[in-house]
């Protein structure tokens, strides 16, 4: 079909329309925010296609990730915040990174979440919530990519979390994951596709 649009209107209309052709543009941050919300609503549940005993470890990791949601992202009294407390002026920054990383993770952007949580851990290596979230994100990446490096990272960070927050309610479960990993023996070979 041809586009035989009518001739443009009077000058005042043309000027007005030309002036407002870009009015109402959203910011990049706003577009990204809605994208994350959208993905969180439409993201299909992903099945991990891992063999043998790695399935068991992955299942335990998934339970921990789910528990994180139930316990709150930033952590209430008695949660993962039982780790080494950072100086007050940095807490808001760290909590912001936890929220940002959690949003990305929930939207399925695990690589983005990993970057955020690594930044958080770099800023404050003793801040337990970031350590726990980083461990969880590496577990998801490991499930997605069958990545030996990611699974190693995941268990390393879970181990670190237990060291930082031994009295946290979810510490025993994280310890169990670490123990499972130690007992697994040849997990590295199992993870190779």
């Amino acid at each position, binding site marked *: 079909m041809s586009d035989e649009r009518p001739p443009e209107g009077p000058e005042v209309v043309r000027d007005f329309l030309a002036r407002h052709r870009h009015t109402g543009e959203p910011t990049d941050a706003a577009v990204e*925010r809605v994208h994350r919300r959208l993905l969180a609503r439409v993201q299909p549940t992903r099945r991990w296609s891992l063999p043998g005993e790695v399935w068991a470890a992955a299942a335990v990791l998934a339970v921990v990730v789910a528990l994180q949601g139930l316990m709150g992202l930033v952590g209430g009294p008695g949660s993962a915040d039982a780790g080494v407390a950072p100086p007050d002026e940095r807490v808001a920054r760290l909590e912001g990174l936890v929220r940002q990383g959690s949003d990305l993770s929930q939207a399925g952007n695990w690589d983005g979440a990993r970057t955020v949580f690594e930044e958080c851990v770099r800023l404050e290596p003793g801040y337990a919530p970031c350590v726990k979230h980083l461990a969880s994100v590496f577990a998801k990446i490991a499930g997605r990519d069958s990545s030996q490096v990611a699974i190693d990272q995941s268990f390393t960070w879970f181990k670190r979390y237990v060291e930082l927050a031994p009295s946290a309610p979810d510490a025993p479960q994280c310890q169990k994951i670490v123990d499972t990993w130690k007992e697994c023996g040849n997990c590295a070979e199992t993870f190779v596709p």
Partner: protein
Amino acid sequence: MLVRSAMSSESLDISRLYAAEARRVWRMLRRLGVSEAAVEDAVQDVFLTAHQSLKRFEGRAQPSTWLLGIAVRVAANVRRSTQRRGVLGVGGPATEPEEAADEALQQQRDLRELEQVLSRLPDEQREVVVLMDLEQLPGPEVAEALGLKVNTVYSRLRLGRAALALALNGPERSAHE
């Protein structure tokens, strides 16, 4: 445009569609009377609706055209619900001038001016003016998105431009142009 290709519902990916069309959908919703406070939910609504309707997308239109139709309907729903609640359609909360950066303040002024003028147009003319004269879409695509004949679209465009001239000039000047 990224998604302008022959796509079926199986190959149409909502994330790619969002990446390609989110900004245009956002602008359109604002220009069709969705307030700043409501626009994020409305954008999400458009793409969720698209996602849920993917199976019904038969590939006869471009995905972007199909999405425009959804956006126009979502905007109409938002306008209706806003009118029922008696809330001002567009503009959002006023920004205190002294608190706003110059650029942000200018954007706010532009948006208010645009809304004030567009709000004087009947909805059916406003939709066509926004899609054709502001978004620069071709008549056939707008006709497809709105489910109208192309001649009807052009007719509404003429009327819409006349109404715009009236709104910008006042009745006396526009009658002579």
